[in-house]
């Protein structure tokens, strides 16, 4: 490689990173074309060109829509539950001391063991995916909201009280704004949880969602379409994560 190019790369890590990614893609391409049986691996070039075909496969766009729907609803419910429970638990020392250990315990158990149970209870349709997404997404929000409410500097509360603020005013003008950055951090973590929960449930059993198609493509030994579908889902996950991350940065501006 010419010296000038090497120098540019040496000065910019971003460029080097791009180079690493390109190199990995090249290895993948070579391996898929000449080394590995095409039943098991498809080269990225073919994956990209077949994306259209994937989206054209009957039922795939609808499946993607259903998945997005499941994610949205699960996220909304997680946020609602997380906010309410987090506030209740965080505001009163007694409720926090009583319920936080229980919440932490629930959060720490491998929820994936009860995935079959969720399907039995909620059926194989979107309801079970949403429910499973909620159980994964709500805990980070509960914990960050409770923490945000609870770690407010006492001097701020004393100051508000000294100015004659009522309890409602303190809640609205002091506790709530203080908790907002933590809430957005919780939402970012909650989105990761919701993605995990919904996707896990989809991959487990699905009749019309993307899980159906991943199973189909796997059983038909169609790595091209499988990789295509996974790429689309990965892109979607990245987009959703990025949105919540941006929101978090925007709303945490007054922190440090």
């Amino acid at each position, binding site marked *: 490689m010419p010296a000038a190019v090497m120098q540019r790369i040496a000065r910019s890590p971003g460029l080097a990173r791009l180079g690493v990614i390109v190199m990995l893609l090249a290895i993948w391409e070579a391996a898929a074309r000449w080394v590995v049986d095409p039943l098991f691996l498809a080269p990225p070039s073919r994956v990209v060109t077949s994306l259209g075909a994937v989206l054209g496969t009957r039922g795939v766009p609808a499946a993607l829509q259903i998945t997005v729907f499941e994610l949205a609803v699960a996220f909304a419910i997680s946020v609602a539950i997380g906010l309410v429970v987090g506030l209740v638990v965080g505001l009163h020392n007694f409720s926090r001391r009583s319920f936080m250990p229980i919440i932490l315990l629930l959060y720490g158990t491998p929820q994936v063991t009860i995935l079959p149970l969720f399907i039995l209870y909620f059926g194989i349709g979107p309801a079970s995916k949403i429910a499973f997404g909620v159980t994964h997404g709500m805990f980070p929000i509960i914990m960050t909201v409770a923490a945000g409410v609870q770690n407010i*500097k006492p*001097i*701020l509360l*004393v*100051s*508000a*009280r*000294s*100015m*004659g*603020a*009522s309890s409602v*005013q303190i809640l609205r*003008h*002091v506790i709530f*704004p*203080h908790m*907002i950055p933590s809430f957005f951090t919780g939402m970012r973590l909650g989105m990761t949880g919701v993605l995990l929960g919904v996707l896990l449930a989809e991959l487990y059993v699905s009749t019309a969602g993307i899980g159906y198609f991943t199973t189909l493509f796997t059983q038909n030994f169609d790595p091209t379409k499988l990789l295509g579908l996974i790429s689309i889902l990965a892109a979607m996950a990245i987009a959703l994560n990025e949105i919540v991350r941006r929101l978090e940065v925007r709303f945490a501006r*007054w*922190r*440090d």
Partner: protein
Amino acid sequence: MRDIAVRVKNVSHRFGEEDEARNVRALLDTSLDIARGELLCLIGPSGCGKSTLLNVIGGLLAPTAGAVDVLGKPVQGPMPRDIAFVFQENALFPWNTVIENVDLGMRFQGVARAEREERARRSLEAVGLKDFAHHYPAQLSGGMRQRAALARALSLQTDILLMDEPFGALDEQTRMILGEDLSVLLASTRKTIVFVTHSLGEAVFLADRVAVFSARPGTIKRVIAVEEPHPRKPDFVTSQKFTALRNELYALLHDEIRKTVSAESAPPATPGALS
């Protein structure tokens, strides 16, 4: 006889229960009359109860014995229309700008919206922060933050101002400037101010009277009068009168400070122990 703004009647305060190991007698039978329009400093060693007394006067703390009357009324809780606080630490709400902080204080007090804007503008101008109204506290220096806290307190237009070591976290030079500005500012208002400080010079410079506390359990040892009109000029600090008063305070405090420090640590080893 001047109007009495704050009457402290035999206030004692103890933290914790009597039989507990952790109980602390912060204040012991303290009485004090503070005249309307005067600036009274409370000074004393650490833990002597001066901040406790301030919180009792302001209604943030109910004393275990005794009572306080403010403007003729007994204190039973915060009195936001009569008393405003300026604390040492940053008590500004970090998610609000300076002017939003000032506005919020008035909202808590119950001031109508129409009046709030005008009052906020005036109080920010009075402390010299007119150009920083839309800055966040994190963007300001310590001195400016305390000016903002003062502006918030001033906008509440209370008769009484309680200041708990407001300049305690600032460096010497900023303290000097803020002290001078405070003196100028308060000469034009007729507020009654109770000001807690550690600094002897600050007390003499600002106060009409200085109440000197003993070591814990705190009680007022002596009240010294500083007869010098406000606003105080910077050259007051170098005058003989200033030095004499400062020395008097030092003499009163020195023993109390020693008592406090030795109560907290072991006595120094005798010279023979080292050999």
